[in-house]
């Protein structure tokens, strides 16, 4: 067994151990931000399958997130007053919500199959406006502008909620701590599945469609069917992210599922690195955590004054820094964060094993962002 493999396994284990230790040490802010990041990561993996791997631009991702979130609430809530609900067991509601997002994607997949690239982007743009209109006006299902309370998930009698109380290793386990582990499991599952798709036959077909549609067709790839299929798959990922998001929010907020959310998702996959699972996860963490961290800790930065005392406020400084970070990533890291990771790894390998210096000129350059360059420890 080579040293690099052992190293990888060790890093992987350390990452898992760290992820498990988080709820025992960090406070609610980190857990809440982390949960949003995990849900964003699931959604971004889905969008990356569609946009990064297949080259289909989608601006409608927020719509499918909304379908997932609201479908979970509708299926899982008991009817109450003028609000409808099916009162199903919550795990069933979660599965049905993902399927509902899939159905919504399936209804649109004929469009997804025929249009390519930016044309699909324009078509899906309409979805957001349609979705917002429905969220605000289909009050019996969506709760209108009030939104609806999200029923906590209950898995085999274990509720992901604050009550009944639970203390693990003397640490009180509330909804956030419990959801953290659920989020980890869902994210790991979503990442593994996407990695399987990308590494297998479908992944190669998708990449070929992205790089050269005609060549793909000539080689026998059913282009339209693949495009439709990946559109459906990506909408199911968005639905899953929506369910996780609803659980983290504990209430659905119609305003949230707008244009900006879709743009955030595009930013995630571009910053993280197009076409890879690790890239999507890194980008999601970057985009959802950085502004929060900057806002929280910006009072420690130089040139920043207390809010309300004039001058540059922490919130404004956070916005500026976030903008600079995004521009820097786009300018200096062509492969996104995933590209940066594989480059550092390659550099590290050259540094640590002197005998492998000649491998630098091997035909498989380590800088490609092919699915192979993604590693399990970052997922």
């Amino acid at each position: 067994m080579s040293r690099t493999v052992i190293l990888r396994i060790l890093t992987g284990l350390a990452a898992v151990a760290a992820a498990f230790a988080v709820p025992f040490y960090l406070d609610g802010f980190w857990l809440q931000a982390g949960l949003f990041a995990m849900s964003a990561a699931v959604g971004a993996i889905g969008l990356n399958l569609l946009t990064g791997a297949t080259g289909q631009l989608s601006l409608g991702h927020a719509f499918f997130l909304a379908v997932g979130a609201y479908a979970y609430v509708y299926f899982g809530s008991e009817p109450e007053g003028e609000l409808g609900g099916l009162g199903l067991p919550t795990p069933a509601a979660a599965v049905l919500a993902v399927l509902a997002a899939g159905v919504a994607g399936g209804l649109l997949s004929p469009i997804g199959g025929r249009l390519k690239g930016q044309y699909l982007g324009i078509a899906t743009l309409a979805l957001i406006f349609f979705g917002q209109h429905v969220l605000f006006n289909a009050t019996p299902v969506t709760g209108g502008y009030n939104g609806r309370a999200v029923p906590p998930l209950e898995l085999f009698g274990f509720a992901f909620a604050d009550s009944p109380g639970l203390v693990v290793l003397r640490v009180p386990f509330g909804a956030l701590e419990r959801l953290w582990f659920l989020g980890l499991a869902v994210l790991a599952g979503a990442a593994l599945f996407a990695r399987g798709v990308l590494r297998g036959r479908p992944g190669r077909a998708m990449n070929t469609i992205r790089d050269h549609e005609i060549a793909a067709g000539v080689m026998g790839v059913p282009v339209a069917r693949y495009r439709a299929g990946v559109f459906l798959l990506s909408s199911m990922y968005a639905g899953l992210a929506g369910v996780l998001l609803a659980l983290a929010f504990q209430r659905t907020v119609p305003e949230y599922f707008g244009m900006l959310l879709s743009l955030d998702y595009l930013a995630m996959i571009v910053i993280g690195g197009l076409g890879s699972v690790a890239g999507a996860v890194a980008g999601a963490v970057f985009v959802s955590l950085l502004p929060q961290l900057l806002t929280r800790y910006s009072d420690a930065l130089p040139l920043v004054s207390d809010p309300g005392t004039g001058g540059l406020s922490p919130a404004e400084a956070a916005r500026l820094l976030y903008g600079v970070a995004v521009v820097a990533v786009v300018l200096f890291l062509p492969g996104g964060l995933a590209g940066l990771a594989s480059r550092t790894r390659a550099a590290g390998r050259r540094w640590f094993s002197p005998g492998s210096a000649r491998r630098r000129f091997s035909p498989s350059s380590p800088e490609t962002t092919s699915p192979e360059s993604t590693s399990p420890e970052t997922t």
Partner: protein
Amino acid sequence: MRNLRSTVAAAAILALAVTSCASEKATGGAAPSAAGGDGVTTGPGVTADTITVGVMTDMTGPYASFGKTLTQAQQLYFEQLNAAGGVCGRKVELVVRDHGYDPQKAVTAYTEIAPKSAAIAHFIGSPMVMALKSRIETDKLLTIPMAWSTNLLGARAVQVTGTTYDIDMINGVDFLVKEKGLAAGDKIGHLYFEGDYGESALNGSVYAAKKLGLTVVEQKIKPTDQDMSAQVAAFKAAGVKAVLVSVGPRQAASLVGVALAKGMDVPFLGSNSAYSPQLLATPAAPALLKDFYVATGGAPISAPLPAMRKLVSEYQAKYPGEALDSGVSAGYPAAAIVGEALKKACEAKDLTREGILTAHRARGAWDGGYGTTMDFSLIDRPATRATYIVKPDKEAVGGAVIYKEAAVSGLAEEYPVPVG
């Protein structure tokens, strides 16, 4: 291979050891409430020498200017409070978090500051407050939302100040009928935002219109719409005798400006969020100065009240050259509501959240000298039903003067407020 196995085992043991060793969170789940040395029972956000009060504001989103003046006015209040000795010998410290009108950021920021705050002195944005309402209620964290829709009522921990939008509209329609010559059978237009603000206001206008024999011509728009030409045309075609305006300042300016240009000479009555003094520097100013009124539960900052005069001079001394808008006249009293609830709770020697809430809700008639008497014991009804009619004025501080003193119409008195 054996080497690897032992490494894995070592890593697993290490992980377990790390997990079980001392964590700050490891309280064993005990309640953190305890009695301090001075016999005062304290809860989250209260230590031996400080009381932390949170602020959830918007400094980078659509309400950035409002958020800034609100925060500054509240900082002024708590500085004065600390200079006068604080509460229970403790200094009050503000923790300000900006959510930029993004529910996700608001939820994260709330999760961060709620465990270490004793109250929230202002919380901008009803979508954000709604997203957190049930958690605020569970946390028993006294919160003053800076939004006035009826869906915010009904929670013991959430104190909507003044009137709600529907009450303002009922009093406003009553004003139009009594003083602007509207009569049964007339049509009134109502331009409103999709969402809780507009729809709360619409509830009020529809109720009042039904009682007074008027018909409401509805025009619903989205906050992203800017040009109101189509809506003016629709109102004109319907022959409305007055227009109610429950949108943002920008849309209100477009509406009155276009209406004036098209020769539609009717009175306009806005909700308190439809007007901002900055509009008087735009081309819409003549139209606004002509026949535009604002129905609001809070007195404008130009009100001839000693407390308001004092606030204006102190605010101008601390923040020279800065605009005095409704953020000041709304923020300072809101801070005072929280500050006085803390003082009351201190007198009862109970600075737990429950103690603060009890102290706050025990006050049946509070006005603090700011012109609006509020009953905080009402949980599922607005704290007051009296509405000022205010008119834009170029010369006045804050760009508006009182046109008609606060009054409760008979209609508003008997109006059943929808809750939740």
